[in-house]
């Protein structure tokens, strides 16, 4: 009798582990290609998601509802995916200009003080759609996808092909892909239609290291060419920096990244995913990203997922907050500046029925630029001890807050 009980308990533990591997979202989110392979053959689903994104200081705000539709047509016909999104974008973005005044005056205008950088208001909408199709052929899962996105001043079109190749008796997967994008930039300031090309390739391998561990290593390379300037950014020239030139960048960019992911699931409905990413490009930007995501199932129907992400990058070789004289390439775009950021987040998922689950998540990100300036030094008639000290500032300084709510239905 006792032997039978032990067998039953072991069988139950095995069942629970299998269920955990199948259900925990870090797998569904894709630890390498196994995720995609496992996903094929699962039920069809519809995911809806609404993201609210808010940068501090009246900067960019985005409301982004999206629908993900996945239709499993069976082994013979494969699987079809469709993603449709619509973003409403508003707010302001730093122009690259130098803060040279204590405050500014404008008609009911946005505040610009000595420690805040000149910003330009903008408002846009973005429609995006992506269609994918994949079907298993023996050990291979080739997929093709096309996407289209349209903004007021930007049109993006891309084609992607990829393959997941299961090897080592199912304990490893080689995944490789290529993507080709042909975009058009149409700045509202000059009404030109400027081409931008992106060709990317990726290669990776996923290992199953026993029952509880997965490791995925992948590398990617992307070559951009064409119009890569930001037509809405300016670059301060000279002192005090009130004169400006348009942002101008090289017309090619080679981007490379290596990503290492490690996943481990613990007994007791818990799982951990650690991701490290190294990035560099020929604009001299190097970046490191470390992310840790932890899943903890609570009771029967709740899943709590805290996450932490640390990021750091160096600046582009032609970046500067202000230039003494014109150069061939120059930009004051804070996104090309040296900066660090830390993000913390929490997502709670509730299984409502066997086919329906809801999730609510939020993240808070703190970003700080390392290229710091003191816009108007406060020194002069009084000695340094008495003079009020101006704080340093960077256009990259900001906090970002997001809320995501979603509903998933399987059928």
């Amino acid at each position, binding site marked *: 009798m006792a032997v039978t009980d032990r067998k039953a308990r072991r069988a139950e533990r095995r069942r629970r582990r299998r269920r955990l591997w199948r259900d925990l979202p870090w797998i569904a989110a894709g630890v390498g290609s196994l995720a995609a392979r496992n996903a094929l053959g699962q039920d069809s689903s519809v995911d809806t998601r609404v993201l609210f994104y808010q940068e501090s200081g009246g900067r960019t705000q985005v409301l982004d509802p999206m629908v993900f539709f996945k239709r499993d047509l069976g082994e013979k016909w494969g699987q079809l995916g469709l993603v449709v999104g619509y973003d409403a974008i508003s707010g302001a973005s*730093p*122009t690259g200009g130098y803060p040279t005044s*204590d*405050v*500014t*005056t404008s*008609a009911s205008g946005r*505040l610009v003080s000595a420690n805040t950088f000149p910003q330009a208001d903008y408002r846009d909408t973005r429609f995006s759609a992506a269609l994918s199709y994949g079907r298993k052929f023996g050990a291979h899962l080739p997929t093709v996808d096309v996407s289209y996105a349209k903004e007021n001043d930007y049109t993006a079109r891309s084609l992607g092909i990829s393959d997941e190749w299961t090897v080592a008796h199912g304990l490893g997967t080689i995944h490789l892909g290529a993507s080709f994008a042909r975009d058009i930039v149409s700045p509202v300031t000059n009404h030109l239609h400027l081409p931008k090309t992106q060709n990317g390739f990726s290669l990776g391998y996923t290992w199953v290291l026993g029952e509880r561990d997965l490791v995925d290593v992948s590398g990617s390379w992307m070559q951009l060419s064409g119009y890569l300037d930001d037509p809405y950014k300016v670059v301060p020239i000279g002192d005090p920096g009130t004169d400006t030139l348009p942002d101008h960048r090289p017309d090619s960019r080679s981007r490379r990244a290596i990503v290492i992911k490690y996943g481990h699931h613990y007994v007791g409905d818990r799982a951990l995913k650690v991701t490290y990413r190294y990035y560099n490009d020929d604009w001299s930007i190097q970046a490191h990203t470390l992310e840790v995501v932890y899943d903890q199932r609570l009771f029967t129907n709740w899943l709590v997922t805290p996450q932490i992400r640390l990021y750091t990058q160096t600046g582009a070789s032609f970046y500067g907050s202000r230039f003494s004289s014109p150069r061939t390439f120059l930009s004051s775009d804070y996104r090309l500046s040296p900066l660090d950021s830390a993000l913390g987040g929490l997502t709670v998922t509730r299984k409502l029925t066997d086919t329906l689950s809801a999730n609510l998540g939020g993240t808070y990100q703190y970003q700080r630029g390392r290229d710091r300036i003191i816009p*108007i030094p406060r020194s002069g008639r009084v000695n340094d001890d008495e003079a009020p000290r101006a704080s340093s500032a960077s256009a990259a300084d900001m906090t970002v807050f997001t809320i995501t709510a979603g509903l998933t239905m399987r059928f």
Partner: protein
Amino acid sequence: MGGGALVQFVDDRGRGEAERIARSVESEARRIEVKFSRYRERSVVSEINRNAGRTPVAVDDETAMLVRSALDLTRLTGGRFDPTVGALRRVWDFRSGRVPSDEEISAHLPLVNAGAVSTRDRTVFLRRPGMEIDLGGVGKEYAVDRAAELLKAEGIHAAIVTFAGDVRTIGHRGDGRPWKVGVADPRNPGRFPFSIRVIGDAGIATSGDYERSFVKNGVRYHHILDATTGWPARGVASATVVAATAFRAGCYSTAALLLGEEAGRELLEETPDVEGVLITDRGAILATTGMRFLSDLPGSAWESS
């Protein structure tokens, strides 16, 4: 009030005291916003509007002063500015970008009439039903001045206050140098082609055709409406005025924008203790004579500093 707010001051009584003063300034600004916003049901402005054509509304001295000041501005602009222009907001929607027809504007123009505003015996009465008074044209600058007065009452001698683009200064920057206020380029958002330098008590305000506006078929339509026609004022893209208070600066910047390039500049030039700069919709910068001592425009005292 819309837009951002910033209060900076120099004080040596410690952080706690500075935060207390900053909070009191903030609550004073909120008090004014709550009291005079036409978007708030319980504001005195909403009460006056609800009782248009029905009964006079008893008001306090502060409200009476603001209404009288708005009516003074009407006289200053020959009727182009009118605090009862609120009725026209029913046909002008600057978010949707719809241009109203002549008939729609004509139908609402009779409700725009500062002469039908009665301010007797500490009451305000809009004599015609459907009239709407809007003190937004002067209320924001008044709030800036109130914040500055409060700082002075707290013993602050060096401060700068700005609410949504209107500025008031007290003393100097804390190091003896003048405050530097960048002036927005009306056609290049985020750019500030020149700046104004002031020391002491001064108010700076800007009126422009680029906020709450839209462009349709190459024509810009904006929220500063000429009350005599019902259509947006033409010719001046931005008017920036320096005066003793933000309130006075705001009145004259609005007046100059409504009067247009020539009459607007003449008004600023001839009014004592008022200086200003107009940026026309052709991009020309027209400054009063005194601005050479107050700005870093070419040929001015602060050029290249």
